[in-house]
């Protein structure tokens, strides 16, 4: 039994690439005018107006190059996202990804465990409560990024959409926030993969996963019990 279906594995990595290019090129576009204020106005809600993002974090080389990447890769992101959502809906994977009743209590147990206030790893199935929330939010924020993106791409031809978001200036701000949330979710995800369950990386490539090395089996929290030989240890002191 594979841990992740091939469709999930492929869309995961396509998404990783598409999202990286979208964020890098988006930041390069942002740097052409690293502010939200309309000319002649000030903007309430961004503390770094007119401070560019470090060029090393951007992609595209210049505004035109970044725009060309952004407007091409957006189709990869959208089509890949739709394939993923359609697949997990039809194939049933969504059941492991939506929050279920008891999510608050289950999340509290996970946090208690990570803070060392609980000794044994809670057993919550393929995805624990925190993972469910993260993997459920990711597509939602993705939709937010796409919708706000369309609103600032076509603020006149699709004016009703842009207006719903508060006009062009605010739609651009919400687009920036969608990017920030995606970055935060991704950093959290990658941090947990490398510090808690690096053995899940092959499972996202080949689909194979060894349950003996699962975080539950190793009783692993970030940086603790990372190595397989700990897996039948008693809880740490």
């Amino acid at each position, binding site marked *: 039994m594979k841990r992740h279906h091939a469709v999930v594995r492929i869309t995961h990595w396509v998404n990783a690439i598409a999202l990286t290019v979208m964020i890098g090129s988006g930041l390069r576009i942002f740097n052409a005018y690293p502010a939200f204020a309309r000319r*002649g106005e000030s903007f309430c809600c961004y503390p770094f107006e007119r401070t560019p993002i470090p060029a090393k974090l*951007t992609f595209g*080389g210049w505004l035109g190059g970044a725009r060309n990447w952004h*407007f091409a890769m957006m189709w990869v992101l959208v089509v890949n996202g739709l394939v993923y959502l359609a697949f997990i809906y039809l194939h049933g994977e969504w059941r492991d990804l939506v929050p279920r009743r008891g999510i608050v209590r289950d999340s509290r147990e996970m946090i208690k465990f990570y803070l060392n206030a609980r000794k044994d790893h809670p057993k919550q199935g393929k995805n624990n409560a925190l993972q469910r929330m993260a993997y459920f939010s990711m597509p939602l924020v993705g939709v937010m990024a796409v919708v706000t993106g369309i609103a600032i791409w076509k*603020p*006149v031809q699709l004016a009703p959409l842009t207006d719903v978001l508060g006009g062009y200036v605010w739609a651009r701000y919400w687009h920036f926030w969608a990017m920030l949330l995606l970055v935060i979710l991704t950093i959290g995800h990658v941090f947990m993969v490398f510090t808690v369950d690096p053995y899940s990386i*092959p499972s996202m490539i080949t689909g194979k996963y060894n349950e003996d090395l*699962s975080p539950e089996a190793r009783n692993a929290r970030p940086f603790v019990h990372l190595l397989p030989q700990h897996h039948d240890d008693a809880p740490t002191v």
Partner: protein
Amino acid sequence: MTMRPPSEEPQPAASYRGHAAERLGIDRRRFLLASGGAIGALALAACDSQGPRSAQKLLKLAERKNETLERALYRHTSIDAPPAGALPAGQHFPSYFVSHEVPTWDDSARGAWKLEVGGLVRKPVQLSLADLASLPRIGYKLDHFCVEGWTAVATRTGVRLADLAKLVGVQPGAQYVDFQSFDDGYHESWDIDSAMHPQTLIVYAQDGHYLNPAWGAPARVYSPVKLGYKNTKYLTKIMFLPDRNGGYWSDRGYEWYGGV
């Protein structure tokens, strides 16, 4: 009715057969380190670059497909209206040109300024500023959408290009319009649909005053359905053409369509 699924699920008994890489004798940690390093190196090499050269063809293809979609999406009835509370940029409106200094029309050297409207038309005309000002005048408070991401609000006053097109009798074969200038060869060509939008104006006044040289005097094209760079300032010629004719920024890598 859904039952509350059990929170504590039984764990399947897994038999450990070892990962393929391990059977091949590749140490897991070393593999992770190496692949992480490779990904990091790739990412660093990509930073701040334009990406692989071979991708440029694909990007061009995407731009053409996007243009097809954007032209299908285009409606004459889609009208720009800045939010009620938006302040006009006034003196904060940026000045932009490609010459080394502000382009100004020197009457003594080049004769009186005229705007030539020609190409695939029955009656080409040459209009002085006074001629333009005597044509049906229209003013809109409009957003300006710059390719860089900023917007600015200004009241633009001038003549609808659709009215000028009636005046000169545009022929059916004219599918594109090229807007040319005396700003060091700056020009941009448009699709005819965008040019005939009711808010596409040949502007000679901004915020109630004749244009000053910093903003494109004596006349410029302005439409909220196009990004700023498509809106040629310092106009000299409006040519109705059977084919597209590129543009200053379109030839340098910005999208030719530049629709908003």
